[in-house]
């Protein structure tokens, strides 16, 4: 594969649990080509969310190497990782994780502002309109339904035009109709901007919408369908 945008080599992750260290990931090696969409699937406890976090630099690998866009994420400090994320990555979580004390507009504008964009708010407004929340820009997360909050989160992830989109069970807290809408928007964003998408889900149908499905079990890749 010509220069993968994401490259994991023999990555292990060990976390401190209540009863001693727990090995979450054992020797994961994985390459993701630019523009690909990858579905990460597996039973709960298989480590798929942790794998996603590693790809985003939100978690540090205990062993092995994680390379994104040519950078060795393990060699970057906390602040450098943050700067890297703001330029190249958008993350969508299952529980939305919007800042409760900011309006929708402010939430979406924040990554742009942090990156120093002068037109952060204008671009944020545009993104919100694109997900159909043009009329809710001044509302706080507590005033919105789950579906609306996730759309804001989507706009926030997409606003910096990231190279890599990471989505961790984005429809987990939403019911059928809302979930469908979010998935449509997610793939639509990817198509429009050509970003690479890594999607963690436990729903087989959803994973199979991606170009590629990677199955995880007990912290190991269980066969990788291309």
């Amino acid at each position, binding site marked *: 594969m010509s220069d993968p945008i994401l490259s994991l080599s023999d990555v292990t992750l060990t976390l401190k649990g209540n009863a001693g260290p727990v090995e979450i990931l054992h020797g994961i090696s994985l390459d993701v080509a630019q523009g690909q969409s990858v579905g990460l699937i597996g039973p709960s406890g298989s480590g798929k969310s942790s794998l996603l976090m590693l790809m985003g630099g*939100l978690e540090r690998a205990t062993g092995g190497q994680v390379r994104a866009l040519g950078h060795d994420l393990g060699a970057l400090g*906390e602040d450098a990782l*943050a700067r890297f994320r703001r330029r190249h990555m958008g993350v969508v979580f299952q529980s939305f994780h*919007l*800042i409760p004390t900011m*309006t929708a507009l402010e939430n979406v504008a*924040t*990554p742009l*502002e*942090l990156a120093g964009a002068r037109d952060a708010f204008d671009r944020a407004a545009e993104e919100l309109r694109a997900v159909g929340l043009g009329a809710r820009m001044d509302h706080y997360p507590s005033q919105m339904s789950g579906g609306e909050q996730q759309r804001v989160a989507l706009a926030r992830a997409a606003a910096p035009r990231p190279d890599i989109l990471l989505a961790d069970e984005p429809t987990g807290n939403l019911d059928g109709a809302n979930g469908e809408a979010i998935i449509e928007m997610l793939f639509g964003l990817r198509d429009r901007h050509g970003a690479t998408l890594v999607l963690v889900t436990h729903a087989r149908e959803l994973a199979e919408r991606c170009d590629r499905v990677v199955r995880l079990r007990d912290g190991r890749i269980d066969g990788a369908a291309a």
Partner: protein
Amino acid sequence: MSLPIAARIARRELRGGLRGFRVFLACLALGVAAIAAVGTVREGIEAGLRANGAVILGGDAQMSFTYRRASDAERDWMQANARAVSEVIDFRSMAVVGDQRALTQIKAVDDLYPLYGQVELSPPMPIDRALAGDSVVMARVLADRLGVAPGDRVRLGAKEFTLSAILLRAPDDAGAGFALGPPSIVRGAALEGTGLLSAGSLFDSDYRLALPEGADLAALQAKAERLFRDTGLRWRDARNAAPGVTRFVERMGAFLVLVGLAGLAVGGVGVSAAVRAYLDSKTEVIATLKTIGAEGRVIFAAYLMQIGVLAVLGIAIGLVLGALIPLALAPVIEAQLPLPADLGVAAGPLAQAALYGVLTALIFTLWPLSRSGQIRAAALFRDEIEHSFALPGWRVALVTLGLIAALVGAAAWLSGVAWLTYWAAGGIAGALVLLIIVAGALKWLARRAAKARALRGRTALRLALGAIGGPGGEARSVVLSLGLGLSVLAAVGQIDANLRNAIAGELPDVAPSYFIVDIQPDQVQGFLTRVNTDPGVSRVQTAPMLRGVITRINGQPAREVAGDHWVLSSDRGVTSSDRPPPGTVITDGQWWPADYDGPAQISFAQEEAQEMGLKLGDLLTVNILGRDINATITSFRVVDFSTAGIGFVMSMNPAALAGAPYTSIATIYASDAAEAPILRDLAASYPNITAIRVRDAIDRVAEVLRGLAAAITYGALATLVTGLFVLIGAAAAGERARVYEAAILKTVGAVRGQVLAYFTLRSAILGAAAGGVAVLAGGIAGWAVMTFVMEEAFVFQPGSALVIVAGGVAMTVLAGLGFALRPLSARPARVLRARE
């Protein structure tokens, strides 16, 4: 059926631990401890005064006369009724050593002194030996000022004395009250030849009586007053040995308790926040209970029980602290006070503190508690908008108001200064309301400011303003917790600075340089010649002075007519003059003609007359030198005591006082350079006169005020410490939210410096707001006190204000940053995973 259920729920929830209630306990305990401590110390002082009354007074009872010694009739009565009678003559004079002159309060004692207690001298020796021959003992500060040590010679009046020892402590010090000069003691007999106590000299004669065991003080007082009241007798006895001190301690104690109540109010804010946060965490449980059919009352009772147990715990801790700390510090306290203090565990103050604690806890918990009953079961299932400002039911509101009234009423009754209590309560309530309004305004302002275009690009600032203006937010708890304490400090700062300015700044400009007293009639002319011919002297005023006690008004005992007014509390200066002195403003009535010889007339000070309820035509009986003079009030004039010039409450026509021995007093307005030579000449020619340097007197007063301000500042600091606890509690409670926010921010690309800047700015803005409001409130309070109580001009003091604002910012930033470590360092992935 509901109460056992409620108790069961309460018990189980309590077993879950006290986490989150540390602030609750700390706030209650601190507030209660402060009040208990103040009350315990006050009780101890009052107990000491009571137990040692006789020693402080110098006798079981004391009969005092002004201007004269006791008459034979009086002496006979005293000898007949007492075991022993000790005579002490008390007057002001100057001690001279070479060129050095110093003011001193002289006690000329007989050989029975002291009737009770011991005089402490250095080097230690019995007082009899120290006063043998023509010897004097002096307070150390006096000896130092004159540059003398035991063995040296000191001149009093026209006679030389030997300083035999330094006076460390006399047992009757506390009863003496405020004196301008440090004390000295000589034998009464030794005054012979000093020329100090001639006819008309101003002195008090105190006759201390040692009474037989079990004497009925009240009966004796009644008898003595019946016999001798109209001769100008003043009676004091061991039941209230030092009324001035007692009154001061009472007032001070009451005032400090009020400051303590302010501290409790701030603590109440913390209590309220803790309860609210606790109930927020119980929303699901409460909704569940409601869903399965538990009634609002049961739930309310359950949580009230829990809070109640915790409140009792907090109050108990406070009582223990409040009782133990004064005991632990007893040696220090007793050493500092010029009074015997009997510090122990006093039930009264502890009960009072407990009462205030219980009422405060109830007042601040009922409102948030009632919301627990209001949580709708359906809140579990729908996306409810959090934290709408729910008004309590009318029942809860009524009960809360009733409790507040009970608290204020109890405070007013127990403190004994009802008007001060109401003012203070009003002030505290007003300040709290102001702070709540400001918090709301701050939130609104912050929200608008966060959206301002100008802020785009200044991410940390925008985040901070957004956080302050957004839902939830700690604007109210920070502003309230810090605001009250800072306001009290700001008020004290403004008032203190203004008072000191007024005293040390303006007064010397208008005040005379010297106050001269005890000028004998045959010395007046020579005196005037000396000073009037001196180019350095700009003005001289003289007036004859006698001292008299107002015993009757219109035939009735004066106290019954005009109450406890200060004019009646002891002897007052009486002057006389043919014409109204230059600058006199007569507000009512008419001055007597120049050589008037009819029935005696008085011109009275207008403001005091108004306060006492006197009218033109009232007949006053004034006892001067044992003789009653009945005079009619025929005019009122304006007397301004604040310029420290000559001001007499009463002026009579000269004929009324004809034949009475008098001295003159004078005020000299002179340049600094001219002072020393004038004094030297006067002292040489007239050794009996006393010169009081007004600047020294002003300094003494300023010193006392400084002490008062310090005491009040300490009280305010206690309030601030409580506020700090609440602040820390709020910061701790907010840590979890801060960790979450930091994780999200780092995820979307914020570096740690930006997150830190955001946290810091958020705290700093809130602290500055609290400080700003405090300065405003303090300024208003300062203006009110200066204008209405002191009747002086008010000038805003920016220096003090700046310190307050800076302090507010520093405290919030420190508290906030103290809880910023975890948020900054935690890994985003962990935090967010935990929140899934």
